[in-house]
Structure formats: structure tokens, C-alpha cells
């Protein structure tokens, strides 16, 4: 082994995975809920596509990273 070799570790400490999963998923689900409330209550003409898309995008970022950390914390190392 070369003396200059530096150990590589995960970008996020392993111990944070469960906490991150819970927080990100909770926040993601709240935004998802608001997305669906908006979809169900606003009438066809009042709907704003940009607003729907941004809510969806933000929710999917949180749900995506949340489910990644959920997988990692449950031992499925992707």
C-alpha cells in the first residue's frame, strides 16, 4: 500500500442515515400532501402549472433523498 493512500469514507456519516431518512421523508410527505390538497381543491381554471411543478419537484427531491437514506439505513447499500 502506498504511504500516500488516504482512506475513503462515505460522504455522509453512517450514523446519520436513519435520522436523515426520517426527516427528509417526513418533510417530503408533507409537501406531497400539500401537492395533492392543491390538486384536489383548486378548480380547473385556477390551477397554476408552475406551482404544481415546483411543489412536485421539491417533494420529489426530498422523497428521493429520503428513500435513498431509508435504503442505506436498512442495509441496502446501493
Amino acid at each position, binding site marked *: 500500500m502506498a504511504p500516500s493512500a488516504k482512506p475513503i469514507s*462515505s460522504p455522509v456519516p453512517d450514523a446519520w442515515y436513519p435520522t436523515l431518512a426520517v426527516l427528509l421523508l417526513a418533510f417530503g410527505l408533507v409537501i406531497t400532501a400539500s401537492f395533492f390538497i392543491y390538486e384536489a381543491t383548486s378548480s380547473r381554471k385556477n390551477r397554476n402549472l408552475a406551482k404544481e411543478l415546483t411543489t412536485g419537484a421539491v417533494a420529489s427531491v426530498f422523497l428521493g433523498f429520503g428513500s435513498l437514506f431509508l435504503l442505506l439505513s436498512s442495509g441496502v447499500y446501493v
Partner: protein
Amino acid sequence: MKRLHSDLSLLFVLGFFTLFSNVCSDLVISKLDRQIDLSSQIVRFTTSLKVENNGAEAVSKVLLPYPESQAKNLAFLSVTITEGKGKTKTSSDRLYVDVSHPEGMPPSLTWYAVSLPKEVSKGGSLTLEVKAVFTHLLTPFPEKITQADAQLVAFQDSAHYLSPYAVKIQSLTVKLPEPKVESYTRLENTKFSGSEIKYGPYENIPPFSLPTIVVHFVSNKPFSVAQELVREIEISHWGNVQVTENYNLVHAGAELKGEFSRLDYQARPHVRGASALSSLVARLPARAHSIYYRDEIGNISTSNVYSDSAKTLLEIEPRYPMFGGWRTAFTIGYGLPLQDFLFKSEGKRFLDITFGCPMNDIVIENLIVKVVLPEGSNDISVVAPFSIKETRETKLSHLDIAGRPVIVLEKTNVVPEHNQNFQVYYRFSSFSLLREPLMLVFGFFLFFIACIAYVHADFTISKSSPSYIAKLQWDEVQTAIQQFQNIMNRVLVIHNKLEASLRDLSRTGDVQACKAARKTADAFLKELTKESKPLLSFLQSSPQALQITPKVDELVIKERELQEKLMLKHSMVVDSYEKKSGGRDIDNRVAAVQQKITLLRQEVDDLLEVIDEI
């Protein structure tokens, strides 16, 4: 026993050998000490030889011959130069050893040429230590035993060292697992004590002099042989190295004859089942986690884990005690922390992990090590301390598109001496780490897009049906009501602002600012009233809005009233400030209006709630 003696034919070609012995007669072995360790199924030869050059020319190579029967079972060979004795003994690095075919030597021997780092000049000498590890050299005899019998094995070799060089003084020590010997060949100078048999010292033995010795002894160590072991090492840059090992194990000792009695075995396992394989200990690296032990039908519960800061010991028992000829297949798996095994140097990442299996005293006939690198790795190369057959494949796993690159390393006849680290170098961009989360994000986003598309799409088949038209109209009414609610909320916000400006006034006494606030509020309110007009007229004309219109109208009236009162209050307060009346005076004058405002505000809020519920 016939098979055992087949090597005796070597003796007959002895004279043949002597003809060629002059080829390498420049070198002389002045002192040779040979130890054969028979304490397990893996036979280890440790030979220390002092080589002297008596010829005129310098010598850079030393030849080590092994008979064919041993050479084909040779698993590991290492040669080092040692200096000093006892505690001061030091060893050099392993010397380069190559298979060679010297001219004129009989083909029934396999020759290994040791390249010396420094030539041995005339009169010079050096001490070599040769470690050779063999598998399948011990033959069970008898080949079949009952459950109660002890396992007897036979070992055969030459009492003299097989060498093309003349040996001045040599001795041989055979170490046995137990001090129980059925028989052993007695030559001159043979001594048996404890669990050791000593032959020699013998002096001035000519090259290729080979008196055969046979040792027949008790060895109850189980002969666990993995016919195939597949180790899969999967790297995840999210912090884990997952190792999965699939064993295909057989007890290669004397086969069990007759029936197996579990009762006898359970009552006296050391007598009725002395040679049975009851447990295995895997020495896993420190901080190994998520350890499992299972086979095709599920978890095997007979296992234990002991861990400390240096290692993790996994003790596993097969589902049944394994007797000779019996076989089993199982899987063990464990996770290892990434930072202990993965390193970065000069822009490349490399995995540094042990090659062989973590269990002691297992012979692996065919070892396959698969290193699964993360998707997106490239520029892959393997550095191993011994020659390994290398192939490539890809594996599809969680959240993969193109599949992960897999390096498949294959080696036959692997012994614990092969438990050395090997390295897999590769390049991997940190951005590739985001591949999996971005895939998940994209997946969720597609789901949201689908929901938006579904809500926006109109799936009605009959566009002219009355119910559909009614629905469309109701949608329009709903739109108008929502817009109206929106306006109302904005109006209420302006009301709040006006109140706030009054509070500011009482604090700062700045009448001008308050007036300006009043002005902007007036403008806004006017605009909002204008905006709400078409909505109100639409609601009044629409038949669908019949039940809601009265509420809306009521709300408009109440709001107007509220607005008036508020303005009145505002003017009164501003006036009193301009006239510089006392605070209590203002409060008294405004009190009646304030009461009305609070009441109206309550009513407006209630009405808004009622409309919201429709």
C-alpha cells in the same frame, strides 16, 4: 498401500539421475534442516538450507526439484534468504521463483528455479528458507472407517532431501498432530519422541539419494475441503463493503462406513465422531457488521459472534456434524466499514482486501473472488501477490442502468497462506455517487408529473351529456368563488394593514405616514372592488351558484360596512391626533366604532368559512 508406493519407482531412476548430477555440482548444501508439519490436512514443508558455492563461476539460481506427485499438489511456495539465528533471525522479501526445465533433467520432476537477488560468488554462501505448502498429500488409510474409529492417514516422502546438489549434513523432523503412530519407517538415526519423528542427521548424501519413509498416524482433524468458494465483494461508496461467501464444503477424510448414530455422537462426540467436522471459525476483520449465516432453506441458528477491537470471530456449526465424504453448502455474509478497505492515491481509488477465505485450515479447490465495483468505475486494474486468472463481467443490482463492472479472480488449490491482501485499482467520479439518488428523485418526479397530467386531462367520453355540462358550469362557479375568496382575503389583509398603521401612529405620532397608508389602502380597495365586480355579476347570473349567491351577497354587504366603519375609525383617530387630543379621549370616541368593527370582522370571517366549506 500400492498407490503409496508408486513413488518408489523414483528410486529406480536414481542411477539415471547421478549421470546428470554434475550439471549443477558447483553448489553444495552444507547444512540442511527439514521440517514437515503434518498436524493438519495441509502439509507444510519448511526447509532451511545453507548453500555454498564451491565452483569457479558465480551462481544466481538455485534449483528446487519436487517429484510429480508432490508438485501437482503444491499450493504455495515461498523462498526467503535468512540471516542470523534464533531471535536475531531476519528474513528477506520473497524471492522470485519460476518453473524451469533444466536440460538433461528427468521430466518426472518439476523444477523450480529460485532467482537470487545477489549472485553467490566462489566460496560464498547463503541460507535459504523454503516454505512449501501441499494439499491432498495425506491419504486416509483405511479409506473407510466407522463412526467409532479414529481416522488414520498415511504420509510418504523421502528421508533425504531431493536435491540436485550434494548435501553435507541434513536432518528431517516430522511433526504429527497426536503422539499416536500406527507405524513409521525406521532408518538409521531414527528417533520417535512425543509427537515428533526425527531422521538424521545424515552426512555426505550424494544428490538424488531417496530412501522412502512412510508414516501412518492418527489424525482426527477434519479434512474440510471447499470444492468451490465464491466470494463476492461489493463496494458501495455510501459506506459499505459487503462480502458474501458461498461455500461448497466436503469432508475429504476417511469416508464413513456403516450407519451414523446421532445418539452416540451426541453422548460422546470425542469418541463417536472424533474426526467429524462440527464447527468452523471464521476470523473476520474488525468492525464487521450485519453478519449472517444461512443456506438454501434459510437461516442456520447455530452460530456465535465474538468481537473485539482487532477482529470479529464468527463460529458456525453446520446443520449436521460432517463425517468423511459428507458435504454441505452454506453462505455467510458480512458488511465492512468502507474506510478500512478503500483508499485513494494519485487520483485512483483502490480496494485493499484479503484474498483467501477467513476460515483456518480449509483447503479451497476452486476459489472465485468477484469484486463488484460501483456503476461508473473505469480504468480497472488488479495487483495481486500471486498469479490469478482474471476475467470481467457485469452485474445488475439495485438502481443500476448499465450494470456494475465485476472483476472475477479465479485460483485453484488455495490454502491459508494465500490470505494476503490484493488491490483493485479503479477510477470513479464523485458525481457518479449522485446517480442513485437522482434516479430516485427522477422516479418520484415522474409520479408527480403523472398525477398532474391525470388531473389536467379530461377523460369524459360524451362531451355533450347534461351531467358533463353541469360539471363544467360548476367548475366555472367554483373558479369564480375561489377568485372571490382570494380577493376577500386580500381585502382583509389591507384592513389589517390599516389597523397596523393606526398602531404605528399611536406609537410614533407620525400622522403623515398614517395618511399615506390610508391613501394606498384606498387605492387598493378600489381596485379590488373593481376586480370583484365581474365575478359577482357572473355568480348572480349563474344558475349553479343559486345556493351560494345569498351568502356571497351578504359577505359583500358586511365587508362594505366593515370597510366604512374602519375608515371612519381611521379618520377619527387621525383627526384626534391632528388636534392633539389625549389618548384616553381618543379611546372613548372610538370605542363604539371599535365594537362594531370587531363584530363585523367576526361575521365576515364566519361567512368566508361557510363559503369555503361549499
